[in-house]
């Protein structure tokens, strides 16, 4: 590739990757309020007959307007949108194959270089703490179960998979609200539901197309004070994510998940994430010794070619634990692993054998109980290496980041119970300064660190919906000096 082309590609990539987390509000009413009033600068307008006129009104109100289209309409929408000043096209991937979308978008990007094309995964979930009731209009069907941890619907697995499969784009997703009872259907989600949705995308470093309930959207369009009272509370969460001081953060990981099949791996990843096990998703093609750096356990869901299989075997030989799921059982033999011990049967489905300083575990079937699997994986991680642990936080998801090239850490916290909770956190490493900020309380409250055995513990006194913790080693420059 020529230098000129390389520079051009870099410029394109830099502009294609937006700042930390962006919320696109999906707007359907004739005239949106001014962008400044809404506190959002990106509108996603569904591609309907009114879209062109609506986009012009929205642009006058200060928005960058994106047409939201199905893949089949992307070409015609792009042609029309390019003429009237749309900022871009959000292509709903639906059930299309990734290759099919990528191919279609390559052509469109080439034909309309001024339009930004983004791929939307519409299969997100409303972030929430879920119950077990299945409510129907003619009654309620309830399934009993033994007492279990609260089930959290989070989008972290989706975001991790999107980032692995579409590395050139910040993950972009949307979800449909689940409004089950009479009050919700009439009034829509409450403030904290919107707040959690916005905060979640920010914490996961993803972009979100946010649907508003009809009552809220109409209310704001008609300047209804009640609707604005709701939205003004959501705005503090909208401001919280873009305020993030670090543009480049690397998620920390104890576990590497190798997959090219999100159907088989989605729920296990979902449960690993839900149990706050720091993880990184890799496509088989991207598997390399560098990709597994810092990882203690690698879980392989996909068939690997010989060279990639050797990467996993080498990882185990150096002391790691490799878990081979389903059809990947023969991986070690295939790559001449240097298996040094007889396999030990662990359960009906699994055997383990030593490989160099580490070991391989073969699971003969797909993961049928992701909850147990996630807990098993946590137990496989050397306790002295667990990067983050939480206590009294059954409704909390935490993501640990390291600002690129620094010894600092940032913990993003989300509380799906949406009610104040005291959370105890332990992070690997020694940190002398712990500061907590939240959309509700602003920046920043100093928390008392307790450093012991190579870990730092602290207590977040009141986590409402979302919060962010800055951890600095003693020698690092204070956060405030960089802001």
């Amino acid at each position: 590739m020529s230098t000129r082309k390389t520079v051009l590609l870099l410029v394109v990539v830099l502009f294609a990757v937006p700042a930390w987390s962006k919320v696109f509000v999906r707007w359907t009413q004739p005239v949106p309020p001014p962008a400044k009033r809404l506190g959002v600068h990106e509108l996603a307008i569904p591609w309907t007959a009114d879209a062109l006129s609506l986009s012009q009104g929205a642009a006058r109100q200060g928005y960058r307007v994106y047409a939201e289209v199905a893949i089949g309409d992307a070409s015609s929408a792009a042609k029309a949108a390019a003429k009237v000043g749309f900022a871009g096209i959000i292509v709903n991937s639906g059930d299309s194959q990734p290759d099919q979308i990528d191919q279609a978008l390559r052509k469109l990007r080439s034909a309309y270089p001024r339009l930004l094309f983004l791929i939307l995964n519409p299969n997100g979930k409303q972030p929430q703490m879920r119950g077990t009731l299945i409510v129907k209009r003619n009654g309620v069907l309830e399934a009993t179960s033994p007492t279990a941890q609260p089930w959290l619907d989070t989008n972290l697995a989706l975001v991790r998979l999107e980032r692995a499969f579409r590395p050139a784009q910040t993950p972009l997703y949307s979800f449909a609200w689940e409004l089950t009872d009479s009050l919700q259907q009439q009034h829509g989600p409450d403030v904290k539901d919107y707040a959690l949705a916005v905060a979640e995308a920010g914490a996961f470093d993803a972009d979100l197309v946010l649907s508003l309930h009809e009552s809220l959207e109409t209310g704001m369009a008609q300047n209804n004070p009640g609707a604005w009272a709701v939205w003004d509370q959501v705005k503090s969460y909208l401001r919280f994510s873009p305020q993030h001081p670090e543009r480049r953060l690397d998620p920390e990981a104890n576990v590497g998940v190798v997959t090219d099949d999100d159907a088989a791996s989605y729920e296990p990843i979902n449960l690993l994430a839900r149990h706050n096990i720091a993880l990184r998703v890799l496509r088989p093609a991207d598997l390399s010794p560098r990709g597994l750096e810092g990882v203690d356990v690698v879980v392989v869901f996909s068939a690997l070619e010989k060279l990639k299989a050797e990467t996993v075997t080498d990882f185990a030989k150096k002391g790691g634990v490799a878990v081979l799921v389903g059809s990947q059982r023969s991986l070690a033999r295939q790559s001449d692993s240097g298996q040094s011990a007889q396999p030990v049967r662990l359960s009906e489905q699994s055997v383990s054998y030593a490989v160099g300083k580490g070991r391989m575990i073969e699971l003969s079937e797909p993961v049928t109980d992701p909850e147990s699997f996630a807990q098993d994986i946590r137990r496989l991680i050397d306790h002295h290496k667990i990067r983050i642990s939480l206590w009294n936080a059954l409704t909390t998801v935490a993501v640990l980041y390291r600002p690129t090239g620094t010894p600092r850490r940032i913990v993003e916290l989300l509380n799906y119970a949406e009610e104040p909770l005291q959370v105890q956190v332990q992070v690997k490493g020694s940190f002398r300064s712990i500061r907590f900020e939240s959309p509700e309380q602003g920046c920043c409250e100093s928390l008392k660190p307790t450093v012991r055995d190579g870990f730092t513990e602290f207590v977040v006194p009141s986590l409402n919906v979302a919060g962010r913790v800055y951890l600095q080693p003693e020698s690092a420059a204070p956060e405030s000096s960089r802001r």
Partner: protein
Amino acid sequence: MRWSSRIAASLMLASLSAASAHAQDLAYVHKKKFVMGTVFEIVAYDVSPARASAAIEDAFQEIVRLDGIMSNYKSGSDLSRLNRTAHFHAETVPTDLYNVIEESLRYSRLSEGKFDITVGLLVNFWKAIMRGDRAPSSAEEERLRRCVGYEKIVLVPPDGVDLRSPCLQIDLGAIGKGYAVDRAVQVLRLRGISSALVDAGGSTIYGMGSPPGQSAWRVRLRDPSDRIHPEVMMLENSVSTSEQTAPSLLEKDSAGHIIDPESGLPVKTAAAVSAVAKTATASDALSTTLLLLGPKKGRELVKAMLGTAAIWISPDGQVEAASSGPQILLAAENANANDSSR
């Protein structure tokens, strides 16, 4: 008797059809709250969704209040204080705490010690092993076993509790949520609600009144075989389910959170037990007790308690059931049932 899916289906259809049309107009309100380490859910039907909503919030507040009394995670709870200070002398406790301990001791006696609220230290010990936080230690296990024994709890009416062991600790995890459900039902009734379902994390559910258009609340029970599909129609009664922690996929010996007080070890059974009783306190206590007793001894206990029923289901579809009143309906054609309740 062999359970008949046809009879079960007929019963269910008959019960479902006994409904008035105008009742369909009632609004339903569904709320959930994280408390006692799980998600409580309440569904209520009422002509006024606002009234139903307010009543549910009041019921949740009652559960939060009880959590402040019965939690052994919160250092400031009355139970934590009792566990710290009541060794070898009686401490005064709130009425709710006294009542739930008194009820617990009744189940301990009925089950000859299989139900035991003093087993918490061993539960925590095995939970730590399950998490990988510590290695098994027979010496530590033996030390903790000496701390266990419901007989060492002495009630001093009307509100005193004396712990006759230096290390005895009370843990209400096997009964507290049921008690909270009963109290929440009382609050809903006081607020004028007559149709509601109160659910403590799926493990204990109380059906109050019936939903519009129905004669009872239809509840599907836990079925590890996924072949039996048992259901109960709940009407002013409660059902609870207990099951040992699922075994590890990747480890040879995995522990579990339900401990047999007799052996001090996690109980080894893959069966799920559901117990129906008149109150949530009773069903909560019974489900754990019956899991530990097993079907043979469990049947005798069920028969001795009017208004109760129970079902044991193993992952391979083996079913054992018993009843002294309520019916548990099975939908599977080929259920291998063994009902000795009549």
